[in-house]
């Protein structure tokens, strides 16, 4: 897509070693900025996470936290300009995708790493039938004939539980309901049996009842195929049942990463605490919803120190001076808070 220069830099403590580590997909100290007329917005400021075969990583964060931009950078579909990768690596099977040729990278898309998008109506091409768009994968990428590709596409539609798959094959996206469209999108992305599936807010545009169905379907397909899945969402409720690990993002950084159970039981970052506190609860009916005070920082002018400090109820003078690195706290979890130890060890 674009010529991307990769600079050698690594944040302390985040393991930006650049060495292959046997992981399926890892993002290592990734840095992305958007250069606009009004200035430079630092959208991703050293994001590190990984996903292995058979596991689901949920990336959680508010709008503008950089979770989608990270995914776009992995897929190589970042709009350049304004988006530029300024540092870090994205390794697939240990190989840095940011240094690959366009052709090498293209071959990974769909087959190695596939992606489903938030709004299936605009993500599917309106002038081609759903069947054509799925069969296209088999025809172009696998060199199949028209009839074989159609057969495989109908199988895919069956797998994502679209009723009357055979007759639905010739429908256009606008003839599908929202949930069916997202199913078709999933069928299309799984056509080439990818090793990693990135789901960028796959249920945000759907009704609540349909949301649950789609999440169940995704979880089931992920288990069956032993895919690595990166589930991008801002909805803590969606995450709980599906994810193995959660990475919480804020202002282009990972502020906490932990097992689902640990994270809900004892968040190790004040931001995560705030997020969990703001989930509406049945036993507090009639009361005002809790929120995190203030707004996310302007990415063109991130405050010095911890980016969360202006909104943090626990902020101390040190938080305004030093950026807390993402460090291990306790067993298999990490937090980017100066007071992570205290938070984990509290009762």
């Amino acid at each position, binding site marked *: *897509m674009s010529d991307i220069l990769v600079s050698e830099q690594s944040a302390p403590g985040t393991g930006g070693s650049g060495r292959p580590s046997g992981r399926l997909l890892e993002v290592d100290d990734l840095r992305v900025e958007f250069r606009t007329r009004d200035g430079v917005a630092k959208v991703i400021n050293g994001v590190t996470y990984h996903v292995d075969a058979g596991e689901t990583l949920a990336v959680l964060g508010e709008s503008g936290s950089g979770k989608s931009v990270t995914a776009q950078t992995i*897929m*190589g*579909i970042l*709009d350049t300009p304004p988006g530029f990768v300024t540092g870090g690596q994205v390794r697939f099977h240990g190989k840095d995708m940011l240094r690959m040729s*366009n052709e090498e990278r*293209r*071959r*990974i*898309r*769909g*087959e190695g790493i*596939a*992606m489903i*998008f938030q*709004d299936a109506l*605009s*993500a*599917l*091409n*309106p*002038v*081609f*039938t759903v069947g054509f768009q799925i069969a*296209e*994968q088999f025809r*172009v*990428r696998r060199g199949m004939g028209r009839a074989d590709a159609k057969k495989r596409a109908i199988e895919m539609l069956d797998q994502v539980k679209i009723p009357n798959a055979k007759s639905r094959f010739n429908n*256009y996206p*606008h003839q599908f309901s929202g949930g069916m469209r997202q199913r078709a999108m999933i069928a*299309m*992305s799984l056509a*080439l049996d990818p090793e990693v599936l990135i789901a960028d807010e796959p249920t945000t545009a759907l009704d609540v009842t349909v949301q649950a169905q789609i999440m169940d379907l995704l979880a089931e397909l992920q288990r069956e195929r032993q895919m690595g899945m990166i589930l991008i969402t801002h909805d803590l409720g969606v995450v709980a049942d599906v994810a193995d690990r959660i990475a919480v993002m804020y202002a282009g950084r990972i502020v906490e990463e932990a097992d689902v159970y640990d994270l809900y039981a004892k968040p190790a970052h004040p931001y995560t605490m705030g997020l969990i506190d703001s989930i509406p609860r049945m036993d507090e009916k009639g009361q005002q919803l809790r929120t995190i005070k203030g707004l996310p920082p302007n990415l063109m002018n991130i405050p010095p120190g911890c980016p969360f400090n202006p909104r943090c109820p626990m902020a101390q003078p040190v938080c305004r001076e030093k950026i807390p690195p993402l460090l291990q706290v306790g067993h298999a979890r990490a937090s980017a808070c100066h007071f992570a130890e205290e938070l984990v060890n509290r009762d």
Partner: protein
Amino acid sequence: MGRYLLRRLLQLVPVFIGTTFLIYALVWAVPGDPFAGKCGERRCPDQYIAFMTEKYHLDQNVFVQYANYMKNLLQGDFGQTFSQREISDIILTSYPNTLKLALVALAIEAVIGLGAGVLTGLRRNGFLDNLVLVSTLFLIALPVFVVGFVLQWLLGVQWGIIKPTVSSEMRLSELIVPGFVLGSASVAYIARVARTSIAENRRADYVRTAIAKGLPMRRVVGVHLLRNSLIPVVTLLGTDLGALMGGAIVTEGIFGINGIGRQVFRAIVTKESATVVGIVVVLVLVYLVMNLLVDLLYAALDPRIRYE
């Protein structure tokens, strides 16, 4: 689809009757004696006037005249000129020439306009983009007769690359320059519409999906992007073809092509009212059919348009 087509065809009937009546009424209402100058310097003999008045029902009101005209027309009789030449004959000899020129112009519009539009839409703000923007502005600003005369003089007279006028055989090679002149303004419009359309759709979600599917770039652009971007361009090309088939008075005049535009112009000047009406009736029909075809093509390109 079938019912839609039938309804559209039925809609053509009142439009056809309305437009042709208007033309008929207007043409015969043009002030002045239809027999002035028909018989040289002298006044026409009374016998001739009486005969012609009888033949064209000139003494009756316009509705009766029109009804008579339509009755003959539906039997394929376009009538005769004042000099007794069959009008259908005039149309049959000149219309193929107009058609040839129109198709050449359309091909030039499609190839150059679409090509320039796609290239610049994909790479905006580059050298090529600016070149196309400036040159299209130039073409839009220049009247057709200027482009025509300048190219005829430069290529035909000064450099001798082409013959300044088109021979009666209407060879394809002779028609390229006249075709370009005829389509010059439209080429510019099509390039600009295509450019905007491509640039707009390039950042569309479905293009991003196509890239994320790992499709080769030429397939992303050539299939997914182009098919969507073509919709406004095809509309423009279709309506333009209707206009091109209406004959090109200026272009045909400059290059000496015996086309329908020249015939209608000559008929207007010489007050050959029957010829004017006959030709314009054909042009109205062509235009209506072209419009219908564009609408159908539009539905074929964009399945979201449902004709129910």
